[in-house]
């Protein structure tokens, strides 16, 4: 299946050609070239998926394939960076997700970005991003993943800062890059630590349950009180947390909304932000077999993040920010599911239900990518018309934008977990897995699910119902090339839940038969419906005074949530006040004044010293002569008497 290489080459080709030709191309034609290349990529991905999933299983287990693997850089005899393609259920699933969403975004942007300056640049960066993201998911080894991990980071930086004349966009892009870079540093440290003991970067070797001797050299070794392997996997998780915006490294994601909305849909909702989930899933055997405590830690961190983000999402007024926090919360769901999961056992070609969490996480990743991209693209259509991100500038849009309205509603129902939309199925599996792990965590997650339904419908009612705001120009439905992707993604969202996902992806590679746990399903649906009802009561008419009263009642909590619990301020304090003021500036001062001062001091002493001896140079011939003679006499005496 060497042709899968073209999945990477085509978007890269798009990036290079559009980037180099630049403004020599007409904006529109750049868009068409980019979209056409991406269309081919998507077709190739679908074909790959079809071919891969129709291959025979061996002993009921799907096998991983490595059609391409090429040593790029050799460090030592056993450590080398390979660039290659690894096809296994999750990477193929991710390829499908990435190319689908990316294609939709490419088509959608033809309408959304119409008339913008820098169309070529935009499509070039989208190509770069798609290339890097595909490279990330098909990585055969952890270092290749790191390489593409950095590349997606930089494409995200470039795209967030697309409107580079806007100061907010510039600082948001900077923040996104630096925060993720900070996390990547830990990722790199984790890689160094892990590879020092295992002597390999290769996922195939790391994740093979039969090949556990490579971890033997780390056994019993501790560093600062923790086992080295736990350190390694925890550090790697910090890298994952940075990309996936887990608390407290989530601060970049809401700001990243300064980028063009389709970019938010692609990078900051559907693909790049789930890279962390993907990384944990990729290394799941390592986490599960060697450092289960880290895996559980991941679950708790993720659950906390999900709760935090859901609360904050309830009070934001910028629609993209609401979606951003909802993304953080949903990624939390995925990571919780991974954290609570166990490795399934294979019996008779079927996987036991211990591996439910893993499957649920990947399932949710898949469905979430679709409906969240849909939500963002819908929000983009609204912003395109209203020219504002603020909820207060919207209201009653259902009449002017019927298609956007229906598709947005579909996505909201999906994320709220209402059957038969896709989100219901995946979320339900996650809740079931969580209840299996620790019932109290299950209760927390159900509560978060209720919050999700509430804030999504708050958003929905505020945009499409409620009081219409005043606009100078008539509002209109988005053009066809924007509504097309919306409709397509809505259709996917409707049907995706009925995919027998467990047959394709599971923790062991064996088929997993999904069955709904009715108790969990009914509770969650009822709770979601109640939340929607509350949202309807509060926001549908736009006249209810209850929300304002609630805000007053929860006073400090409300204000804190509105300010995202002041996490940004804490960071601001740490970076500006501590790093800049207390480290960098004193260091720079130290360099200029102490170190350089010492050197200048040496020069000064030399000058002074020579001045001190200057009186000896009288300029009088006779005094020199006297000194010469005295010197000669002294030497004479020494030679005579010593």
């Amino acid at each position, binding site marked *: 299946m060497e042709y899968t290489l073209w999945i990477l080459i085509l978007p890269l080709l798009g990036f290079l050609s559009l980037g180099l030709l630049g403004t020599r191309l007409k904006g529109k034609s750049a868009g068409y070239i980019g979209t056409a290349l991406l269309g081919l990529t998507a077709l190739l991905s679908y074909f790959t998926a079809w071919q891969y999933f129709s291959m025979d299983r061996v002993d009921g287990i799907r096998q991983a394939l490595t059609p391409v693997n090429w040593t790029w850089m050799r460090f030592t005899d056993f450590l080398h960076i390979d660039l290659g393609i690894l096809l296994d259920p999750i990477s193929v699933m991710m390829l499908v997700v990435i190319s689908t969403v990316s294609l939709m975004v490419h088509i959608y942007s033809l309408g959304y970005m119409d008339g913008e300056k820098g169309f070529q640049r935009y499509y070039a960066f989208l190509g770069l991003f798609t290339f890097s993201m595909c490279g990330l998911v098909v990585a055969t080894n952890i270092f290749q993943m790191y390489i593409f991990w950095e590349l997606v980071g930089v494409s995200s930086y470039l795209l967030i800062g697309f409107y580079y004349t806007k100061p907010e966009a510039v600082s948001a892009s900077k923040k996104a890059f630096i925060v993720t870079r900070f996390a990547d540093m830990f990722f790199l440290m984790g890689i160094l630590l892990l590879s020092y003991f295992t002597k390999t970067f290769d996922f195939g070797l790391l994740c093979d349950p039969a090949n556990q001797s490579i971890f033997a050299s780390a056994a019993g070794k501790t560093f600062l009180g923790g086992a080295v392997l736990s350190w390694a996997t925890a550090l790697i998780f910090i890298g994952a947390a940075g990309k996936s915006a887990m608390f407290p490294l989530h601060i970049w994601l809401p700001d990243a909304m300064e980028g063009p909305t389709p970019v938010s849909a692609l990078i900051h909702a559907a693909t790049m932000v789930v890279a962390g989930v993907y990384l944990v899933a990729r290394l799941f055997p390592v986490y599960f077999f060697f450092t289960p405590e880290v895996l559980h830690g991941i679950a708790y961190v993720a659950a906390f993040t999900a709760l935090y983000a859901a609360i904050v999402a309830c009070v934001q007024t910028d629609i993209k920010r609401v979606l951003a926090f909802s993304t953080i919360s949903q990624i939390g769901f995925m990571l919780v599911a991974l954290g609570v999961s166990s490795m399934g056992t294979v019996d008779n070609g079927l996987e036991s239900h211990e591996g439910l969490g893993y499957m649920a996480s990947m399932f949710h990743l898949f469905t979430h990518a679709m409906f969240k991209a849909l939500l963002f693209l819908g929000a983009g259509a609204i912003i395109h018309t209203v020219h504002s991100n603020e909820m207060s500038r919207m209201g009653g849009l259902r009449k002017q934008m019927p298609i956007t309205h229906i598709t947005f509603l579909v996505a909201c129902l999906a994320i709220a977990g209402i059957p038969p939309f896709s989100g219901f199925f995946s979320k339900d599996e996650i809740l079931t897995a969580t209840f299996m792990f620790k019932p109290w965590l299950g209760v927390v997650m159900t509560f978060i699910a209720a919050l999700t339904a509430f804030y999504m419908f708050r958003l929905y009612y505020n945009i499409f119902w409620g009081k219409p705001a005043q606009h100078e120009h008539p509002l209109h439905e988005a053009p066809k090339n924007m509504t097309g992707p919306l409709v397509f993604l809505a259709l996917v969202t409707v049907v995706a839940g009925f995919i027998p996902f467990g047959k394709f992806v599971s923790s062991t590679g064996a088929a997993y038969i999904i069955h709904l746990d009715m108790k969990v399903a009914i509770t969650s649906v009822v709770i979601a419906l109640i939340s929607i009802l509350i949202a309807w009561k509060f926001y549908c008419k736009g006249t209810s005074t209850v929300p304002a009263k609630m805000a007053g009642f929860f006073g400090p909590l409300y204000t804190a949530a509105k300010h995202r619990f002041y996490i940004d301020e804490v960071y601001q304090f740490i970076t500006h006040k501590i790093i800049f003021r207390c480290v960098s500036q004193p260091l720079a001062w130290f360099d200029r004044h102490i170190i350089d001062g010492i050197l200048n001091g040496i020069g000064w002493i030399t000058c002074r010293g020579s001045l001190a001896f200057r009186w000896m*140079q*009288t*300029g*009088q*011939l*006779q005094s020199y*002569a*006297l000194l010469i*003679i005295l010197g000669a006499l002294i030497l004479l005496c020494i030679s005579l008497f010593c």
Partner: protein
Amino acid sequence: MEHIIPMEYYLVVSSIMFFAGIYGFITRKNLIAVLISVELVLTSTDINFAVFNRFLFPQHLEGMFFTLFSIGVSAAETAVAIAIIINIYRNIKSTEVRNLKNLKD
């Protein structure tokens, strides 16, 4: 050869001349006087050369030659020095040593 003047006498004379020259070189204020003092020093060494040659190595003549050579050199040197002094006098209207410290500043 008992009637011969002993070597020490010559050396005493040349030492007196040498130190007189040095003293003059250091203390005289006039450049001409300084020059004369230098000549004294040079002459005293010439005497030494001749004496040592005569008493220690009578079969050789290098010392004598060197004395002649040295007299020649000192004559040339005196000529150059006088020329310099005349030029100095033309420039600063003085032959005083302590006025000559332009190089220092």
